[in-house]
C-alpha cells in the first residue's frame, strides 16, 4: 500500500466517520435540546411548550406544601409565578426564597410537573439562567448580595 493510498484511505474513513457522527448529532439534537424558560417567558409565549423544558426562578416564599411524597411549590421570577410540583426527594438545597431550576413538562391545567429538580452544591450559587432572568425582570442587579 502506497503512502498516497493510505492517506486516501484514512481521509475517506475519517470523512465517513464524521458524516456518521454528524448524522447522529443532528438527529439527537432535534429531540434532546431542553429549552430554558422563566415564568414570564411562558406567559409571553402564544403556544405553551409541549416538550420537556427547564423552568427557572426562585421558589416563592410561603408556597411550599407537601402532599405525601409530592411537593407543591411556585416558581417566580418576581414578575410572574407558576405553580409546580415534584414527586420524590428534593435536593438538599431546595428552599423557599432560593433559586431553582427544574426540568419537566406543562400539565393540562397549566401547572408545571417537574421530572427533576437540579441540585446545587452551594447555597451562595445562583444558576446563571436564574440570575439573568431576574436581571431581565429588573429585580436583581449585579452586586446585590442576593435577591
Amino acid at each position, binding site marked *: 500500500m502506497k503512502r498516497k493510498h493510505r492517506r486516501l484511505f484514512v481521509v475517506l474513513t475519517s470523512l465517513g466517520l464524521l458524516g456518521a457522527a454528524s448524522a447522529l*448529532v443532528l438527529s439527537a439534537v432535534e429531540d*434532546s435540546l431542553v429549552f430554558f424558560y422563566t415564568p414570564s417567558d411562558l406567559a409571553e409565549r402564544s403556544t405553551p411548550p409541549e416538550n420537556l423544558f427547564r423552568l427557572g426562578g426562585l421558589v416563592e416564599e410561603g408556597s411550599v*406544601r*407537601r402532599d405525601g*411524597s409530592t411537593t407543591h411549590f411556585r416558581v417566580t421570577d418576581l414578575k410572574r409565578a407558576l405553580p409546580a410540583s415534584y*414527586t420524590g426527594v428534593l435536593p438538599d438545597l431546595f428552599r423557599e426564597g432560593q433559586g431553582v431550576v427544574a426540568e419537566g413538562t406543562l400539565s393540562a391545567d397549566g401547572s408545571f410537573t417537574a421530572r427533576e429538580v437540579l*441540585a446545587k452544591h*452551594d447555597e451562595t450559587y445562583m444558576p*446563571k439562567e436564574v440570575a439573568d432572568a431576574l436581571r431581565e425582570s429588573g429585580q436583581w442587579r449585579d452586586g446585590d448580595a442576593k435577591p
Partner: protein
Amino acid sequence: MIAEIGQFVLILTLVLAAVQATLPLWGAARGDAALMALADRTAIGQAAMLLIAFAALTYGFVTSDFSLAVVYQNSHSLKPMLYKISGVWGNHEGSMLLWILVLALFSAAVALFGPNLPPSLKARVLAVQAMVGLGFLAFIIFTSNPFARLSPTPLDGTGLNPLLQDPGLAFHPPLLYLGYVGFSMAFSFAVAALIEGKVDAAWARWVRPWTLAAWTFLTAGIALGSWWAYYELGWGGWWFWDPVENASFIPWLFGTALLHSAIIVEKRDALKSWTILLAIITFSMSLLGTFLVRSGVLTSVHAFAVDPERGVFILGILILTIGSALTLFAIRAPGMKGGGLFAPVSREGALVANNMLLTVAAGTVLLGTLYPLILEGLSGGATKVSVGPPFFNATFGPIMVPLVMMMAVGPLLAWKRGNLKTVAPKLVPAAIATVLAIVVTFALVPDGPVLAPFAMGLAAWLAAGTLAEWAGRIKLFIVPLADSWRRLAGMPRSASGMTLAHLGLAIMIVGITGSSAWRVELVTTLAPGQSADGAGYTVTLAEVTRGRGPNYNYERGLLKISDKGREITTLTAERRFFPVANQTTTEAGIHTTILADLYGVIGEPGRTPETANAWTVRFFVNPLVPWIWLGAMVMVFGGSLSLTDRRHRVGAPRRGRTTAAAQPLTAAAE
C-alpha cells in the same frame, strides 16, 4: 506571618517562572549548556517554593487562622482535621494553588528524573512548562490570592461546603488535577519537539510514561468523583453528562487517544504530526475544563459559586496557549514525515481507527457541552437551552460500539500488515462468549430494554477477546502450564497493563449496562413502623433517631429491607444539617453485593402537624453498579502496572540506540 511568607514565595515563583520560560529557550537555540542547565534548577526551585506556599496555606487552615479570607470562607474551628486539610483545595484560590503546585512538581520530576533527555529538549520542555505556569501564577497572584487578609479578624469561619466534607471528595480534586495537569507534560514535550523540529521513537518513549501517569490519575479522579456523586447526592445516579463532568471526561477521551497514538510513534515511527496535535488538544481540553468549571458559564448540576471575571482570565490563558501551540504546529508539522507504511488491516490500522473513534466521540461530547454556549451567543442571549443525557446517549453510545468491538481485535493483529483470516480462529471463543452473554441476559431479564443484552454481549466480546490475546501470549494450554507461567512472569508489564485496562473497560460496560437498563425505584412516604412494597422488596422505616455529629445534627432513618418476609439488610440513611453553613446533606444507606446495590435515602419530614412524622423515602435497586468502580479500579491498576514497566521507567530510555532512527527536520523535509 506564615501567610506573608506564602505570598512572598508566590511572587518569587513568578520571577523564577519568567526566567525559566525565557533563558533556557535562548540557551537551547544557541547551544549554551549553562543556560539550558538553568532550567533544571529553576524547575526544582519553583516546586520547592510552591510547596512552601502550599504548606503556608495548609498551616492557615490547620490552625484556623481566620484572618485569611479563604480560611474564613471555607473553614470552621469545629471541623474535623481531615476536612480542615481538604478545605485547602476545597475552594477556588486553594485549588488553583494546588493546580500550579502539581504543574511545578511535574516540571521538577523532569528535571530530576530526566538526566538522559537531550539537554536542548529538556530545556525546551521545561521552558514551555514554565510558560503555562507563568499564566496561572499571574492568575493566582492577580485575581485569586489565597493569602488575602481580612481585617478585623472574624471570630470563626463560615465552614466548608458540607457536601465537600466527605472522604471521597477530599481526594477527588488532587487526583483530578494530577491527571489534568499531567497532560501538560505531553503538551510541553509536543511543543518542545515542534521547536526542535524532531519527533522520533525516543521522543514517544519519553512522552508515553507521562501521558500514562496522567491518564491513570485522571481515570482514578473521575471514578472517585462519580462514586462520590453516587453515594453523596442521593439521586442513585453516577453520571449525569453534566458540563462539569464532561469537562473532565473530554480530556480523558483525548488522552486515551494520545496514549494509543504514541504507541505508533514509538513502535513504527509513524503518525507523528497527529500525535503532536493530539498532545496539544488533550492539554487544551484540560485547560478548557478548568475554564468551564471555574467560570460557571454553563449551568451545572454540580455547580459551586463562581466568579465570571476569573473565567475571562483563564479564557485568555486558554486562547493564548492553544493559539500559539497550534500556530507553531501549523508552521512545523508539514516538515514532519512519517515512516512505516501500513495496511488498513494491521495493528497500526486498528490504533488509527481507535484514534478516529475516540476523537469523534470526544468531539460530540465537546459539541454537546458547548452547544448551549454557542446557541446563546448566536441568539444574543435570548435562547437558553441545555443539552441533556439523551443527546449524549444517542451520539456517544453508538460511536463506542465499533470502538469496543475493535478493541478485542486490534491487539491480535500483526504490525504493518495484519491478516483477518489468521485472527478469526482466535476470536471464536469470544464470539461464543458474546452469543452466550446475549442469550443468558435475555433469558434472565426478558422484559428489560432490548439493547441491554447486546451491551452485555459487547462486554463479553471485549473481555473474551482480551483474554484470548493474553492466553495467546503465554501460550496457555498449548505449552505445559509451567511454561505458560514462565511466559506470564516474563511478559512485559506494559502488555499486562493493556490487558487489565481493556478488561477493566469490559467490567465497566457490564456495570453501566446493568445500572442504566434495569434500575428500579420506589418513592413513598413512611412514618416509623410503616412499610411499603416496591422495586421487588419490602421497605420498612424501622425508626428515625436524631443526634449530633462533630459539626452537624442528623436525622438517621433505619430502613429494613426484606424480600418476601426474609430480612435482607438494614440501610442507615441520614440527613445531616450543618448549622454553620445552614445546609443539609444526604447520606445514602447502601448495601452492596456483587450483583446489585440496595440504596436508600430519606428526605424531609412533612411540615404540617399531621405529616411531621412522615418521611419521604426513596429506595433504589441498582443492578451491577459496583462493577463500574471495580472496572475503573482494574483500569487504574492496569495503568499503574504498565507504568512500572522497565521500558517506561522515566529516564530509562537511552537515545543512543535510536539515533539512527531519528530524523532531523532538515533531513526529513527535503
